Every structure is written in structure tokens, then in C-alpha cells.
């Protein structure tokens, strides 16, 4: 067997850093310096990107359709809020990790429910868990503040050095650092043999089991990890906005997240990041046109995307960049069409 037909060879080649990827992150960093007046919305985009990356891990890599990802986001958000409010862990980074772990525990516990059954059962169970947590948060309003949410959260400086300022500058760079660190981790994981085995499971669980992949254990692992990511995203939400309210569990949040990922494409990690940017821009545009009814246009975008077909859409979008790359670099396109899913 020669090297180029070896699976490991291809896997390693795909895992290499390209110039495009480095450029992507440099652009993101540059945005922080270029638009000093827009920190709040940019932080919002970063948070959404991290949250979408979490869903990408389960949907794009493991093929689990989840309608209740807001459950983990919400647990992370409330955990971070409660930790800060009661002064249990004052240091934001530690609190962030603690909140992520809280969501992770929930993810682990519920993963056993999710791996059972087919698509529809999974949909229902994930949706049910999110609704259940929302009901719980409403019920225990003495802890969560009920519909008013957690108020009066004061964030301590990061590492005891860098305070959160009112323009959101520290918040932005803090979120960016967290996003980048978690992106590196996710990148490492999806390109590892573990990540490859997930793809095998997604493509055909029966065959994956037949070649000796412990399907259920792998799904539990990735679901738990994704819950950790979503929890961190939720905690970032609380830490940078200093509020946590019941709507962190809302169904709309999970649905919007789906849209983000669908816009960006699944199964290559950047989908969530790109999708988050486009989604927020769309939302801005729609809410300036019709402040109250932007949801209509978001719905329309979803319908159109599905009717046109996600594959075709991504091909169209990537047509021009690939043409340029072909002309300039004279080789095959490096910006690949994202893998199909589910």
C-alpha cells in the first residue's frame, strides 16, 4: 500500500493548517481592533459561534439531530451566573470551566437517553429535556430569579488583572480567546482517530459497529463534550452580559442555532463561525426593516435554504472563491464543499 492511498495519510493531510485558516483567525482578531464601537455585537457573534460549534460536534460529526441544545447553554449560563452572584468562584475563567463542567454532567446524564431510539425519538427527547429544564428554572424561582432572571451579577476581573469594561472590549477579547482555545481542542479531536470513528458512525452506525467501533460509547463521549462546549457558551453569555434569564432555555434559541449551522454548513468546524456572522447580519438587517417581525424573514431563509438544498447552496457560495483559487494558485480547490449530513 503506498502512502497516498493510506487513510492515515489523508487524515493527516486534512488536519494540516492552511493559509486560509490562519488568515481567517487573523481577520477575526483584526475585527477587534478595526471596529472598537461594535464590541457588543461582535461578542454576541463569538458566543453564538461557540454555541454553534458545539452543535456541529454532535450534528455534523456524529449525526445526532438535537432540538434542545439550549438546555446546556442554559445550564452553563445559570451556573456561571450563580457562581458569580454568590461569590463561590470569583475568577471568571475558573467559573467558566466550572459552568462548562456543570453542563457536561447534564450532557453525560442525558446522553444515555439520546443514544436510544431513532431520529424522531432523539428530537423529542432533546426537545423535552430543554423544556423540562425551562420548567424547572421557572419552578425554582427562588434560586433562578424566575422570569426576572438573575440580576445584579458583578463580574470580577479576569485572572484578577483585567476588568470587564462597559464597552465590552475585555469581554470581546476574552470570548475570542475562549473560542480560539476551544476551537483548537475541537480541531484536534475531530481530526483524531476518535473523530474519524465518529464520522464512520454517522455514515453508517451498523458498519461502524461491525468494524469494532463502540458506537454508543463514542456517541456518549461526543455528546458530553458538546454539552461542555454549549455550557461554556452559555457561561460566556452570562459573564459578558451580566444577566441570565429564562430565555436561555427557549426553543427559539435551539432553532436559531440550527439555522446558524445550516447557513454555515456542518462537519468542518468553521460552519458555526461563518454561520454566526451571517445569521447576526441577517438578523440586524431584518430587524431594521421590520423590527417586530424579523422572525418571518428568518423563517423564510430557512425554508428557502432547505428547498434550494444545502449542498447546492454551498456549492454556489464557494464557486467564486474556488475559481479564484484555481486561477491564482493553479491547483484544485482548497475550500471544500462541506460534507453532507444526517
Amino acid at each position, binding site marked *: 500500500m503506498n502512502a497516498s492511498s493510506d487513510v492515515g495519510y489523508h487524515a493527516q493531510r486534512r488536519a494540516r493548517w492552511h493559509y486560509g485558516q490562519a488568515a481567517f483567525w487573523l481577520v477575526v482578531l483584526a475585527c477587534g481592533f478595526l471596529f472598537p464601537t461594535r464590541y457588543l455585537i461582535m461578542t454576541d457573534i463569538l458566543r453564538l459561534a461557540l454555541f454553534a460549534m458545539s452543535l456541529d460536534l454532535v*450534528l455534523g460529526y456524529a449525526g445526532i*439531530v438535537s*432540538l434542545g441544545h439550549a438546555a446546556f447553554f442554559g445550564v452553563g449560563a445559570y451556573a456561571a451566573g450563580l457562581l458569580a452572584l454568590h461569590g463561590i468562584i470569583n475568577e471568571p475563567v475558573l467559573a467558566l470551566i466550572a459552568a462548562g463542567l456543570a453542563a457536561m454532567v447534564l450532557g453525560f446524564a442525558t446522553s444515555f*437517553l439520546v443514544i*436510544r*431510539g*431513532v*431520529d*424522531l*425519538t432523539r*428530537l*423529542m*427527547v432533546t*426537545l*423535552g*429535556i430543554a*423544556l*423540562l429544564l425551562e*420548567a*424547572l428554572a*421557572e*419552578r425554582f424561582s427562588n434560586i433562578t430569579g424566575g422570569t426576572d432572571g438573575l440580576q445584579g451579577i458583578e463580574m470580577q476581573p479576569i485572572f484578577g488583572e483585567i476588568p470587564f469594561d462597559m464597552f465590552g472590549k475585555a469581554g470581546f477579547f476574552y470570548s475570542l480567546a475562549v473560542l480560539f482555545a476551544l476551537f483548537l481542542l475541537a480541531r484536534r479531536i475531530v481530526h483524531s482517530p476518535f473523530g474519524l470513528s465518529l464520522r464512520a458512525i454517522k455514515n453508517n452506525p451498523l458498519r461502524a459497529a461491525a468494524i469494532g467501533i463502540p458506537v454508543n460509547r463514542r456517541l456518549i463521549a461526543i455528546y458530553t463534550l458538546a454539552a461542555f462546549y454549549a455550557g461554556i457558551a452559555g457561561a460566556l453569555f452570562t459573564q459578558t452580559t451580566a444577566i441570565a434569564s429564562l430565555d436561555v432555555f427557549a*426553543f*427559539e434559541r435551539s*432553532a436559531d442555532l*440550527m*439555522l446558524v449551522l*445550516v447557513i454555515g454548513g456542518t462537519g468542518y468546524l468553521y460552519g458555526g463561525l461563518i454561520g454566526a456572522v451571517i445569521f447576526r447580519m441577517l438578523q440586524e438587517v431584518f430587524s431594521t426593516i421590520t423590527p*417586530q*417581525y*424579523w*422572525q*418571518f424573514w*428568518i*423563517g*423564510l*431563509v*430557512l*425554508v428557502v*435554504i*432547505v*428547498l434550494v438544498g*444545502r449542498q447546492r447552496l454551498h456549492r454556489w457560495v464557494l464557486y467564486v472563491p474556488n475559481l479564484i483559487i484555481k486561477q491564482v494558485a493553479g491547483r484544485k480547490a482548497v475550500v471544500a464543499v462541506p460534507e453532507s*449530513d*444526517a
Partner: protein
Amino acid sequence: MTSILTNLFDGVAYGMLLFVLACGLAVTLGLMNFVNLAHGAFAMAGGYVCMVLVNRMGWPFFAALPLAFVSAAAIGIALERTLYRHLYARSHLDQVLFTIGLTFMSVAAVDYIQGSSRVFINLPAALQGQFDVFGVGIGRYRLMIIVICGLLTIGLQMVLARTRFGSRLRAAVDDPRAASGLGINVPQVFAFTFAFGCGLAGLGGALSAEILGLDPYFPLKFMIYFLIVVTVGGSSSITGPFLASLLLGIGDVAGKYYVPKMGPFVIYTMMIVILIWRPNGLFGRTAAR
């Protein structure tokens, strides 16, 4: 004792209503394996049509009900022929995204046209209030719901069990490929059933304005209930969803009455437990589709 019976009665009315609302979805899911999260939008459409006819145009309530059915069915068939049809062969993810999109659009559109506040349908005096039977309070409106939905259920069961169309539909649900091999026009059967299911949802929407409350967020609020009825009841027969809706209705009413603080907690826990115990539904077949 009487309060138990009153609650039971309310629960049965509630459950029957849920059944009429959701049984169209059972067919969609069972026959075409299509996840239609926008089902509630058709119910809402029926409810609003009824509201406009009764409140604004002065139609009698009972004349507006059939029109709620017809309008929701018309919208259903139009959407089925133009949009839904293209998505049967797609993945569940695509179907979920598409129908969530439709739901969002319907919510915003109704909000735009009718405003975001809850609407009420003016009921005739004969349907208001309640009377006592051996000390058990019986709401007139709920009694009417039980009568209408009960007749509908019996009618549906007869159609399914006795008519040629019913046997075609059952054959198509059981095995669409074999059914089309036998010369049954499965897409046509489905289009018709889809429209009929949407019509029933519309009728349910009109009836439910008084009990569940009708506002633009109806499709989102009750989506989970419809899904529970179908997933718990299974889609292999009409009895499964029917029993599931009764269970859900009685459970929800009793839960809200006896443990009001736990709110919807009871229902969601029940659903998750049942789905874990029997992933194909309480009354579903054991084989996975």
C-alpha cells in the same frame, strides 16, 4: 370525589381536543415518515378563520366551524402540493428545518395581521356556563367538545376500518413500497390524508381557542404536545394516538390541579420516561421503521 370526576371530565375534553389537533400529524409521521413541526400552524389558521368569521362577520359559531376545517385543509393541500412534496425523500434534519421555518413564518405573519394578543371567539349563550350532574360540574363547552370529538373519532375509525380508502391508507402506512406495488396511488392517498389532517387541526384550533388559548405563538407552544401524542401513541393505528391524547389530557389537567407548582414538569417527565421505556411509542409496533 366530585372534584376528581370534574377533573377527569375536563381532562377527557382536553385529551379529545388534543387528539383532533394531532391525529393529522400521526398520519404525516406514520405514512410518509415526515417530521412536520408546523402542524400547529394549520390549527392556528383554522382558529383565526373561525375567530374572524364569528367576531367580525357575525357568523354563528357552528357555521364557522366547518369553514375553519375547510380553510385549514385548503391551506394544507396548497402547501403539500407546492412545498412539502419535495421534501419527503429528504433527511429528517431538512424536514425539521423546513417546518421550523414555516412555523416561524406563520407566527410572524399572524402577529402582523391580527396582533400578538390572545383572541377569544364569541360563544353562543347555549355553550357558556356549566351544569351539575350528581354534583359533578360539567362545562357545556367541554361537553360539546367531547361530543364533537367523540363523533369525529368514531367516524375516523369507521372510515379507516370499513372503507376502501381506509384500507388503502392503512396499507400505505404499513408499507408504502408494497402498497404502491399493488397499484395504490400512495402520493394521492397521502395528499388527501394530509389535507384532511390539516382540516382536523384547523377544526381543533377553532375549538381550542376557548380552552388552550389562541395567540400567534400557538404553533410553538403546543408543538411539543402534538409530538407527544404521536410519538407516545405511535402511528400504526388511530387508537394509539387517541389513548395517548386522553392520557396526556388527563395527566396535564390533573398535574396542573393537584401539583400546580410542578407545572408542565409532569408531562415532560412522563414523555421522556415513556420514550426511554418504549422508543417506538406506547402503542407502536416494536419493529423500528
